[in-house]
């Protein structure tokens, strides 16, 4: 059996390219930063959606919690980004642990509603507690200290992009170990067949709660990065469209495959950026069209245009 899961050459190339990108495309650093954050958020969702088979429409709850935790910490306690990020991860992990109690019971549909509900509750809390969160105006005036006491966050976002990419890389390595381990295999077993997973002695609810909590912490890290690198946290981080977008990102990149989150974030963010620069008003139309085509044609075939016609000729055999 393939003993410790080795890194393929293309993985090394990909990560070197990603980590070098802010240095090469200096004027695009803000965009790269955004991609890294979306990728981290998507990878965290994939842990529960792709690897464990739990559909969540409220993953933004943890993203938002991380964002507000990081912003508040910087504003009220201390401006160090790394400590702030750890706090963001800690707080959202805690929230994840509490919320995991709500999703281990019930059918898929009720669970979906619960995840949605948690997101709505948090958004409204952030809105109402305006003495703390700034309410609808958002939490402004978050000033970050330099990274490791040396690297200032510059206006062009180069430090931000490198910082986000490094955090993405570290947490990705963690997730990669996790999904290839016996623990990861028990998650896949739960996804494939919950009844049998139970019948071989896997504590199913416990495992679901645990992976949900881990995913919440990762999503919180992504939210924390957003608040830290933009110096701002607004109600928008909790919004439903964020949970929906991150699911689209996974659909684009592929679920149950950690690079799906990264690939999806790249494609989705670049596409969104590209189309909205051409048609700022109607870009969602084109994104929608792209998604419909993607699902109809299939990801595999979309990447191989030469196969389109052969399929048409064979009458789109199903």
């Amino acid at each position, binding site marked *: *059996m*393939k*003993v*410790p*899961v080795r890194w393929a050459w293309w993985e090394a190339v990909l990560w070197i390219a990603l980590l070098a990108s802010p240095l090469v495309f200096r004027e695009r650093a803000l965009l790269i930063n955004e991609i890294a954050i979306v990728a981290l958020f998507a990878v965290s969702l994939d842990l529960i959606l792709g690897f464990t088979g739990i559909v969540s429409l409220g993953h933004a709850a943890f993203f938002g919690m991380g964002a507000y935790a990081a912003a508040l910490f910087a504003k009220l306690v201390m401006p160090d980004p790394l400590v702030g990020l750890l706090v963001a991860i800690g707080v959202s992990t805690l929230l994840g642990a509490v919320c995991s109690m709500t999703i281990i019971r019930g059918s898929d549909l009720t669970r979906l509603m619960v995840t949605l509900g948690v997101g709505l509750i948090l958004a409204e809390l952030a809105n109402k507690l305006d003495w703390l969160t700034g309410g609808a105006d958002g939490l402004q005036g978050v000033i970050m200290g330099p990274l490791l006491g040396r690297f200032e966050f510059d206006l062009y976002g180069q430090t931000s992009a490198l910082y986000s990419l490094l955090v993405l890389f570290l947490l990705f390595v963690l997730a990669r*170990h*996790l999904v*290839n*381990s*016996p*623990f*990861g*295999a*028990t998650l*896949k*077993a739960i*996804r*494939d*067949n919950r*009844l*049998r997973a*139970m*019948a*071989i*002695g*896997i*504590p*199913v609810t416990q495992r679901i709660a645990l992976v949900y909590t881990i995913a919440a912490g990762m999503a919180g890290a992504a939210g924390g990065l957003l608040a830290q690198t933009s110096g701002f946290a607004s109600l928008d981080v909790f919004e439903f469209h964020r949970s929906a977008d991150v699911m689209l990102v996974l659909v684009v990149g592929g679920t*149950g495959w950690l690079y799906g989150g990264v690939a999806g974030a790249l494609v989705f963010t670049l596409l969104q950026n590209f189309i909205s620069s051409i048609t700022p008003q109607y870009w969602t139309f084109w994104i929608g069209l792209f998604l419909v085509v993607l699902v109809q044609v299939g990801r595999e075939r979309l990447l191989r245009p030469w196969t389109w016609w052969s399929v048409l000729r064979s009458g789109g055999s199903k």
Partner: protein
Amino acid sequence: MTDITKNPVVLSAQGLIKRFGGITATNNVTLNLHQGARHALIGPNGAGKTTLINLLTGVLPPTEGRITLEGEDISTLPPHLRVRRGMVRTFQINQLFDSMTPRETLALVVSQQRGLGGKWWQALGAQPEVNRRCEELLEQFHLSSVMHQTTNVMAYGKRRLLEIAIALACEPRVLLLDEPVAGVPAGEREELLQTVAALPSDVSILLIEHDMDLVFSFANRMTVLVNGTVLTEGTPDQIANDPQVKEVYLGHGEGAQHG
């Protein structure tokens, strides 16, 4: 044949009752499985065999009655804890992990069985002792040739073998086999029958089966279940010659018609 009932009881159900609304699916069943037994549970369709298995394994809570495993009351334990105490089942309809290969499946089950299921840093299959056990199981269940195929593309007979291999990978002391040869085509049947016959003798087995050839060649103890109650229990010879059982199976008994 030695009398298996002289061995100590490993699994015992006492006065089990299960009602679904107004229907009594299991009606006051008492059953003892002895150490090393090959105990067949037979009965016409709808006799409540699968309900009984679900009660024993903890998928369903009993309305009344109690279940002990090696002397310990397990009536209220959740399914996965009963598995950890050594009682494992197979399913009448295959319950496999479709996206995994037999190799991965067994590595997972063996890891879980050895308490490594919570390990998240080391890779699956990084422990030599886990791998050794996997090789043994693949060999024993004639799965070596398909060990790298994804389970959902395997032939039905092989899937059936994997179904049992998963259970045995849990190192059971009590094994509940729910119609192990159901639906297996003739060409793949012999391999499966041999494998079932070669299961370790120290494992006590409760077998639910419709196939009378398998039952009579395999069992050393039999219980006949009709309408949720135990009609009779005895050695295969006693059962084969029991007029009540004949009546049920030849279809004269009213009891066989409903329930």
